């Protein structure tokens, strides 16, 4: 059961790295990518991914605002924050806003896959299920 993922990060490099990593695991398909919070909200509406990997510091709209807006649209959205060190307070804020978990850069393959597996478990059992 492949899960559809929306990757949100303002750097092409991080998006590429995450894309490669998730695709090579065989469990995830990249449904869309967004370079800021505004795009993330729009993309979420159009592709309805199973999971969002969300950067925090971005132009236009930051990751926390985007998390709030996505959850307003879809309270069952699964969003995982992806942040560099020094953003701990913002991570907590994002979790309060409804993000399911977080990954700190430098991320390891193991850590990312573990977190994603973990946050997707309850969803697999819910009526919403996977989209694929």
């Amino acid at each position, binding site marked *: 059961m492949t899960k559809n993922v929306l990757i949100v990060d303002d*750097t*092409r490099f991080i998006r590429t*790295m995450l894309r490669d990593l998730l695709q090579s695991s065989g469990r995830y398909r990249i449904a869309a990518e967004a370079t800021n919070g505004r795009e993330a909200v729009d993309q979420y509406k159009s592709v309805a991914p199973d999971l969002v990997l969300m950067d925090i510091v971005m132009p236009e709209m930051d990751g926390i605002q985007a998390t709030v807006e996505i959850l307003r649209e879809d309270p069952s959205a699964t969003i995982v924050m992806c942040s*560099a060190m*020094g953003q701990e307070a913002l991570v907590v804020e994002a979790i309060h806003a409804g993000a399911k978990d977080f990954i700190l850069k430098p991320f390891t393959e193991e850590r990312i896959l573990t977190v994603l597996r*973990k946050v997707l478990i309850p969803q697999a059992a819910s009526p919403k299920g996977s989209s694929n």
Partner: protein
Amino acid sequence: MDRRKYLELFLNESREHLEGAGKQIEILISGGTGKNATLKEFYRNLHSLKGMCAAMEFRGLTELLHAMEELLEWGRAGNSSRLLKTVGTLETGLEEVGALLGLVENGDPDPSSRTGVLKNLRSRKKSRKIDHESRRPRNSGGPSEKPEVSFPSSIRVQMESLDRLLESTAEVVIHRLRLQRSLPPASGGPPGNHQENLRQSIDRLRAEVMEIRLVPFGSIAGRLRDAALDLAKRREKRIEMEILGTEISIDRSTLERLLDPLFHLIRNCVDHGIEPRQERLRAGKKSVGRLLLLVTRIGSELRVELRDDGRGIDPALLKDRAVEGGWLTPQAADRLGKEEILRLVTLPGVSTHREPDEVSGRGVGMDVVATRIRALGGTLDIDSWPGRGTAFRMQFPLTLAILDSLLVQGKSGTYVFPLHQIESIQEVPVGELERGRNRCLRWKGAPNVDLYSLDEILGVGENPHRKGTCPVLFLRTDGSRRGLLVGSILGRRDLVLRPLGSPLETMREFSGAAILDDGGIALLLNARTLLPETPGPH
């Protein structure tokens, strides 16, 4: 994950962010309009760069960019003159980032800043108690200064800080356990997930804290060798000393406490083990005596072995001395096996040497060595071959602070076992147990294993189980397998250990105490010293 394949993408994009940040700095310095928006963009560029460097595992660059981010925050929080100064320093920082990216492009796997930029960035951050390895950060220093001081990527931290960090970590472990006990059993859902996340995070924290306290054994090797050579010279003996396993890392405080016993054993070897040159030649040995210090890691334990090729310990003489000292009767002495005889040397005042000397003393010392090793939760074994040499073998846990343990219930209380000493646990039918000699029990399920009852060994009763089955811990100690019958098994715990202190530290059966999550105290049993040395007759 192979990060090298992303290098080109990384370099291209990081240059874009660097350029962007450079333009923003120019605007800020020239006092252009839209200061807040520019600051925000500048911060974003720094942050993106930092995230990218972190993802590529360029620690030096990540550290530099993190310091720049922190400085920027500090500058933004102050008045405009502070901000302007900060911006000047950040401009220097950006130049350095550019230089380091150049090094990355030229193949440097993880370049770190060697100019004073990072130091200068950090000098703004006051009230840090950490000394930088090169020099203490100055609290002054203008933004345009570029002090020609090199700085390394590591920092020097006071040992006391690390001790406090360890203590706090230990407390967090206890608080978590107590919290867990006071909550209803977690069954999925958010509370259960939070508990599990907390446990995992604390485990990682604990592992990190343990890790940063480790220092290589090699850090004391020079001092040990110097002490040995220096003493040999004073004794007009010639020795060579080889130390193997210097790369093995040990908790700093364990290493510190190991130093004295090691010095003493080395002195003992040089003074009493290694013979004078003429005596060696007469015995057909090389004139240069040989000392070998071998450090090995066995699971979560450390083994330190010191060997000499000297005259060895004369067991008959040792027995006589112990009898003379009133430690045992001649009859009892005759019943002792080789290992037990050699262990007599650790009794206070027992030595094969008549003449006291200034360095090793006479007999005083080996008992102290043995006590110190026990206080580290370890054991001391002695082996000797008359005419050929002696080996002192010490084995103890790599770290004493927090132990993965099994809690068991005995008649006289709750006891702790280091999990790594337990090979397996089995429920053994009481009806199948047969009484052997010397308090030993036998079970047909493991016919070669000597079983003992914990209560009986501690002298508080017999096997508490009359019928049904009883739990038996199969212990792994120095190659031999032995079993211990316990009242019941309470479960696995992470326990914070404390040394016993005087006078309890002399008790061989226990090597520490732990505070339990209900506030009670349990003694740590040492499997190697708890059970009788020699297997009971079959």
